[in-house]
Each structure stands twice: as structure tokens, then as C-alpha cells.
């Protein structure tokens, strides 16, 4: 299976990894509707603009609205709005370069693909494994969030248990999701679209009502509070924490090979989803901090937004938001598991992970090994119940990738391979990608020390894997 005639006569001299496998680099033609391989096999592009936006928004919105508002307001006060805005700006600074690279290389694998082709194998390996593990941390974080919502639901309906059920519930659903992703053949994309539309509907209602209320159009006037009661440093620290809410746009690029009309839909889906969720986040913090003093919000923890809804719309509002929270966190976790498995596939195809990792079973047609490589560590990490650590390590690993995406863009623009012909060009080059790289790396400095240590540890392990496994595989410049 691994041996293909398309490797051509250069095959014998091509460098290999420690197992003797070499990357599978194939001539393909990307059309608007399909990818056509040299020997004529076609891969259908089936995800439209709505599907792309739904992947981006669906991945992101679970965290920013349903997990972070309480934590963020507790740390930064109403200025947490600024934290989310900073996050949105950084995400946009990366989304634009990522859009250019994605239209130049509409292949599955996303950020990993751009960096391995733009900067070479060592960065590619670190980022690729970092992307896989980053998504594992992110999924675990969403599942912990889900656990808290499920626990709140139990509380709401009056079921009490002698222990905190949040983590066990998260683990239980993590296992369920992983099993479903291997055995389920329903139209998951269609379900995801419906879930995202439903969420945006509920949230729009809630935010419009809460917003009008808090500016005094009707109801009680809101509590005036100092904008940044804890000073400005927490605003930046909070921005680093909540950046996990912006990890979804790059997931659009991991399915770039399946997006219809990639030159149009990829930039629109990536930039559009960041702008959309950014607006929702800022509005949510505004409404939340108008309802409660931020210190009080902080004590509500992960499910603070439920209390906000209760304050505005009574028990009915609380129930609606609880259900929305369950949907949102589970859809984020699910989207991340799937992206993570795609990252494993991309690495395996490039001989940076063993070939077996990309095996597909004929029974369900699913990549069970890659899904397992995502699902098992996710469940283990969910059991830790360490919301902040999981979120920050996920952000850390993504920020490293984002920074390197910007660097890869600059490298490719300065020294373009002959295939480099993006349909979308980043404006304000080179200032914008340079700012994106600096901001991405800079944000890491504001994280908790523990998160930085774990993040650096993960990077060190990926580098060790590069030294041990990849041997002399060369990916730079190979489309």
C-alpha cells in the first residue's frame, strides 16, 4: 500500500524515516469541485461556505461563551471585553496569512501543511504533532466544560450526587464521542450545521434582550462598574487564557482539501468565523458584566452565563442557556476530535508518524487508529478537570503554530516555489504577518507558568520525536 508507482524514478534516492517510509507526495489538480490525482482518481469537494463557517464557528463558540465569561470577568472585570477583542485581533492577524496559504495549498492538514512546506520538516514535525496534541488538549477542555454544564443540569433538576459529577460526566461523554466518531456514519456535517444555527439563534435572542436591558431600554438599569477594576495586566493575561476561544478558524484549513471553491470559501470561512464569534464574545461579556459585578461572576465559574440568563429571563432563560451550553461544548469537542484525526492522517502521509496511523476500516469507513490517537488522550486529560491548564496548553500549542504560519508566509513570499500561486493575497504584507507572528508568540508570555512549562514540555517531546523518527525526510517546498 505504501509503495506507489507515482513516486517515480526518484524513489530510490528519496530520503526516508526511521521505518523506511517516505512521504507520499502526489501530483494533483485542484478544481473547484474536486481534487484529481495524476492517475485519474477524483476526490469530491463537499463542504460549502456554510459548512466551512459552521466548522469554524462550531469549534470556537462553545468555549468563548459557555466556559470563559465567568472566569474572564473574574480576572479582568468588564475589560475582559478587551481581552476577547485582543484575541479576535490576533486571530485575524493569523487568519489572513492562513487564508493566503490555504488558497495556495488547498490540502488537508491545515497549519501543519503550510509550515512543513514553507519552513521544512523540523518545524513541520513540531507543529504537526503540536496540532494533534493541541487539539487533544482543546477537546479535553471542551469536555470539561461540557461536564460542568451537565453537572449544572443535574443540579437544576434536583439530582444530587455525593461527589462533583463534572469530570466523570465529561469523561463519559468523551468516551461516547470517540466511539461514535469511529462507528457513526450519520451525516455529522449536516447535524453540525443545524446545531450551530440553533446556537447562534439562541445566543442572538439572549444577547439582544440582555443588551437592550442593560443599556436601560427596558427593565432595571445596570450596575456601573469600573471598566478595568484589576488593572491592565490581567486584561492581557485573560487574553492569553481566553485565546482558546479562537482556535477554530484554523480547523477550517484542516479540511481545506474538502472545501468547494477553495479560493473563495476558505478565506471567507476563516476570516468570517473569527469576526462572527469575536462579536458574540464581546457582546456576551458586556451583557454578563452588566448583570453582575465581575467579582460575583468569577465565583459562578464555568457556568456563569447560566446565572446571567437566569437574571435576565428567569428559569426558562437558564434552561435554554444550559441546553445551548451542552450543545456548544459537545460540538466543539466533536469538531476538535475530527480535526485532530485529520492532523494525524496528514503526518502519517508525510511519514512523520507510522503509516498504520492513517488506516481506514472498511466496516464503518472511518480512520479508527487516528481517531483513537485523538480520543484516548482526550479522555485521560478530561479526567484531570483542570480547565485553565487545558485551555492554556491548547492555546500555547496553537499559538506556536499560528506564529509559524505567519513566518511561513513570509518565507514563501520571499522565496516562492514555482507552484506558489495563492488566489487570496494577505493585505499589508509584510507588516501584517510580522505583527501576527509577534502577537502570537507574545501572547504566550502572559500565560500561567504551569501552562508554559507543560507547553514547552510537549514541544520538547515533539522535537525528540523529530530527532528519533523522521530521520532525513524532507518536506520543504514539496507540494
Amino acid at each position, binding site marked *: 500500500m505504501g509503495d506507489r*508507482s507515482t513516486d517515480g524514478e526518484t524513489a530510490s534516492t528519496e530520503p526516508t524515516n526511521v521505518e523506511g517510509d517516505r512521504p507520499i507526495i502526489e501530483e494533483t489538480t485542484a478544481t473547484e469541485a474536486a481534487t484529481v490525482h495524476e*492517475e485519474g482518481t477524483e476526490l469530491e469537494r463537499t463542504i460549502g461556505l456554510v459548512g466551512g463557517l459552521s466548522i469554524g464557528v462550531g469549534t470556537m463558540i462553545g468555549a468563548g461563551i459557555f466556559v470563559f465569561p465567568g472566569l474572564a470577568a473574574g480576572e479582568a472585570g468588564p475589560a475582559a471585553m478587551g481581552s476577547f477583542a485582543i484575541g479576535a485581533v490576533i486571530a485575524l492577524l493569523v487568519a489572513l496569512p492562513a487564508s493566503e496559504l490555504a488558497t495556495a495549498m488547498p490540502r488537508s492538514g491545515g497549519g501543519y501543511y503550510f509550515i512543513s512546506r514553507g519552513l521544512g520538516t523540523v518545524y513541520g514535525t513540531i507543529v504537526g504533532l503540536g496540532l494533534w496534541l493541541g487539539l487533544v488538549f482543546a477537546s479535553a477542555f471542551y469536555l470539561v466544560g461540557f461536564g460542568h454544564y451537565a453537572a449544572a443540569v443535574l443540579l437544576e433538576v434536583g439530582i444530587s450526587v455525593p461527589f462533583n459529577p463534572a469530570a466523570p460526566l465529561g469523561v463519559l461523554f468523551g468516551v461516547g464521542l470517540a466511539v461514535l466518531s469511529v462507528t457513526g456514519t450519520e451525516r*455529522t456535517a449536516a447535524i453540525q450545521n443545524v446545531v450551530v444555527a440553533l446556537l447562534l439563534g439562541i445566543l442572538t435572542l439572549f444577547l439582544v434582550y440582555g443588551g437592550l436591558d442593560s443599556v436601560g431600554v427596558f427593565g432595571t438599569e445596570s450596575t456601573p462598574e469600573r471598566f478595568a477594576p484589576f488593572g491592565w495586566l490581567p486584561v492581557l493575561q485573560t487574553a492569553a487564557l481566553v485565546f482558546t476561544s479562537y482556535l477554530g478558524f484554523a480547523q477550517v484549513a484542516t479540511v481545506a482539501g474538502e472545501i468547494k471553491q477553495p479560493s473563495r470559501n476558505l478565506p471567507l470561512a476563516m476570516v468570517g468565523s473569527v469576526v462572527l464569534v469575536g462579536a458574540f464574545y464581546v457582546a456576551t461579556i458586556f451583557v454578563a458584566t452588566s448583570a453582575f459585578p465581575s467579582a460575583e461572576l468569577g465565583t459562578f465559574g464555568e457556568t456563569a452565563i447560566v446565572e446571567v440568563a437566569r437574571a435576565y429571563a428567569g428559569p426558562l432563560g437558564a434552561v435554554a442557556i444550559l441546553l445551548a451550553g451542552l450543545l456548544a461544548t459537545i460540538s466543539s469537542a466533536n469538531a476538535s476530535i*475530527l480535526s485532530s484525526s485529520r492532523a494525524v492522517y496528514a503526518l502519517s502521509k508525510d511519514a512523520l508518524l507510522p503509516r498504520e496511523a492513517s*488506516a481506514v476500516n472498511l466496516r464503518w469507513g*472511518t480512520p479508527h487508529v487516528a481517531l483513537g490517537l485523538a480520543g484516548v488522550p482526550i479522555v485521560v486529560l478530561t479526567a484531570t478537570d483542570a480547565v485553565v491548564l487545558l485551555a492554556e496548553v491548547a492555546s500555547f500549542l496553537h499559538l506556536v503554530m499560528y506564529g509559524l504560519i505567519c513566518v511561513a508566509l513570509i518565507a514563501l513570499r520571499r522565496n516562492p516555489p514555482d507552484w506558489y500561486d495563492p488566489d487570496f493575497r494577505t493585505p499589508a504584507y509584510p507588516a501584517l504577518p510580522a505583527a501576527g507572528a509577534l502577537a502570537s508568540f507574545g501572547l504566550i508570555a502572559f500565560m500561567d507558568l504551569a501552562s508554559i512549562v507543560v507547553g514547552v514540555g510537549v514541544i520538547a517531546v515533539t522535537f525528540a520525536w523529530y530527532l528519533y523518527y523522521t530521520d532525513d525526510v524532507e518536506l520543504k517546498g514539496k507540494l
Partner: protein
Amino acid sequence: MSDQPTDTDQSNDAREDQSTGHETATDTDTDTSGPGPILVPVRVLEGQSVEPGVATLLSRARVLLLGYHEVPDQTPPGQARFQFEDRATERLADVAGELEVAGATVETRLVFTHNREQSLNRVAEETGCVGTVIPNPAMRLEDVLVPLRSERSLERVAGLTGDLLAGLDVGVTLYRLEREDEETSGRVLERARELLEARGVDPDLIETRVDTSLTPVRTIVNTASEYDAVVMGESDPSVTTFVFGETAAEVAERFHGPVLVVRRQSHDERPDEPTYAVDRETLSETDGLGS
């Protein structure tokens, strides 16, 4: 092939011969190389094949054999291809061989997709297919049912049926469901018979049959069970489902044998005329040509 072929050249050429002969894709002249192209989709990795009855139906045709493998959303199509392409190509070549033995000219394509219908529609559109065969099993082909619905689709349905079956020992039953307009029915059936005979179908093999029904799909399916295959015109003009019209799709779903759905002409050919729609209620009516 070059004078001194390397191993790689040979294997590439062999692969290309199997999977993409380009000879028919741009050729629209039906007189020289048989009617077509006719799209034949097969679920290539699930062992779907073409049985002798289907091969007979297509024995004079130019066939576009589309092997497809549908994967769930959580699997990148490229990943499925990575693992199954060789097996799929091999299976597809086998199926193509069976059709070729029967006399058809076959071009093959292979697609990995999340969405079967989208892929079929795209390929049908790209290649200008005149019809699609849903290759349900049929051990033999002795008689074919041709439900006729309108004077507009009549020419294409009867014309293609005639082209495919001319000279074969296969009975053709022209079938008409009517509500009140006997005159139109007679005219449609007569015209269809003329077309078949003009294309070379033995007049002795042509029969006509008229029924009345308020539930056309059920009636067609019931009647079809007495026959080996069904040829019918596509009905639903919506852009997204132009391979299988609604009625035709239902018949194809419920009828156990092969169904040839004759495609509508492409949209740009008659841009000024009102869109023609046949649904279950208007199935037995003509589309205004006679009134």
C-alpha cells in the same frame, strides 16, 4: 509509450488505460460509437457489480462507469483513497471488462466522496451524459418497460431506448398512464413506436400498454415487476437532483431491477421555455403541447 519504457512508465500507462481513457469524454457523435455516454455508478468497494441483464441493456452503449466510494464525514476522502484506491481500481476494471465483453465501449472514473449524489451529478454534468443506469440486479434482459409521460421527453426516451435495443432480442413495452386524454395517449404511443422502429427495433417486439392510475409511482413499480428493466425520463427539473428526477428516483428505489433514467437536456438549451415539471399528479398529462 516511449522506445525504452521504464518500469514506472509502464505502470503509469497501464493505470491510465484502466482508469481514464479520454476517447469518449469529448465525443458527442452518437452515430459512430453508439449511444451515450450513459453513466453507470457502482459502489465499487462494496462489491456492487453489473449483472448480465444490465450488460445486455448497455451492450451497444458508450458507458461512463463511475466507481464511487462514499465515506462518512469524519474520514477525509483522500485518506480512504490512500488505502483503497488499488483495490477499487482493480474491481472497477473487472466491472468494465464485463461490460466490454457484452459489447459496450467503457470509460471509467473513480471518485472518493462524502456525498454520492453530488459526485454523480457533477460527473454527469461534466461529461454530458444522456442517461444514468441504476444497476440493480437483473440476471437477464428479455423485456423492458418504458413509461412515457410527456411529448417533450418522448423523443429522448424513445430515441435512446431504440438506439440501445436496436437489433437485440429484447421486447419493448411502451407504457402510458392516463386520466382522461385518450387522444394524447394514442398519439404519444404511436410516435414512440415510430421512433423505435426508425432506430431499428423489430416491430414485432414492440407492445403498447395503457393503464389508469391515481398513484403513478406505485402503479409503475407494480407493472414493472413483470419486466426485467425500466427506461424512463427524468422528471424533476431542480438543479440539485438532475440525475434522478423525483418520480424516477422513487421508481428506482422501489423497483428491484435496473432502471435507466434519461436525463433532461441541459438547462441552457431551452432557456426561454417554461420549466417543465412532472410530479405525481401531472404524471399522465401532457405538458400543454396539445392544448
